[in-house]
């Protein structure tokens, strides 16, 4: 085999997918995605600063069916990155490295992220229903 084409360790393609590896790459994917979410937040802030006209356009986009789906995605990405980020900080402190603990914290991150996303949307939609 030519020297430059040898597969590099750790040969991810021959691994059976595991929760740990999926959560790990999902942390980076959500991190990059949240940069786009940050751009959306900046657009919203710029629109608010620009006046009622531009702000109405922004609210129209974000309040549309597609806008809500995008916001749902970003809110889940934010909660996931937050929860898994805390998981990383706990590891950085030296705790939770036993394999059962790693899986337990991994599933906890998934479940808590979903619950927090649901709670945030329930809160937001309830407040919206209450008028301006």
């Amino acid at each position: 085999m030519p020297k430059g084409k040898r597969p590099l360790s750790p040969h991810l393609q021959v691994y059976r997918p595991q929760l740990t590896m999926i959560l790990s790459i999902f942390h980076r994917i959500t991190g990059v995605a949240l940069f786009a979410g940050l751009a959306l937040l900046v657009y919203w802030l710029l629109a608010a600063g620009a006046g009622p006209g531009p702000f109405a356009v922004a609210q129209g986009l974000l309040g549309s069916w597609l806008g809500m789906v995008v916001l749902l995605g970003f809110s889940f990405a934010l909660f996931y990155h937050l929860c898994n980020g805390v998981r990383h900080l706990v590891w950085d402190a030296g705790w939770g490295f036993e394999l059962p603990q790693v899986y337990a914290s991994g599933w906890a991150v998934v479940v808590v992220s979903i619950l927090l996303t649901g709670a945030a949307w329930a809160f937001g939609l309830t407040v919206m229903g209450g008028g301006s």
Partner: protein
Amino acid sequence: MSPGAPTGGAGGSGSAKEGAGHWWAQRLTAIALVPLTIWFVPSMAMLAGKSHGAVVAWLGAPLNAILMALLLAVTFYHVWLGLESIIEDYVHTERRHVATLIAMKIAVAVLALAALFAVARIAFGG
């Protein structure tokens, strides 16, 4: 260079002596973002569907403006560090590596300045 892994050629050069600073900054911004995010999400949910006047009044209140500016500043720093790590891991060719890093830093810097401008404009009612 002797046969073997490229790391053999790096031996004796010493470390870049800045990795620990990068690591610490990423963790400290992460820790700071935990309470800021807990403030941010309910605030945004609360503002959903509100009128322009209500949103500007809320964002213009000193505490909210300061927390929003803080959240944005820390987030942009965190994004800068995180994207730097990702580019360093996945973009290997020297030229593409440098070009991607520069493009990322320009994008983050421009967006960060726009964000702080927007918050200042609302806070000072410009």
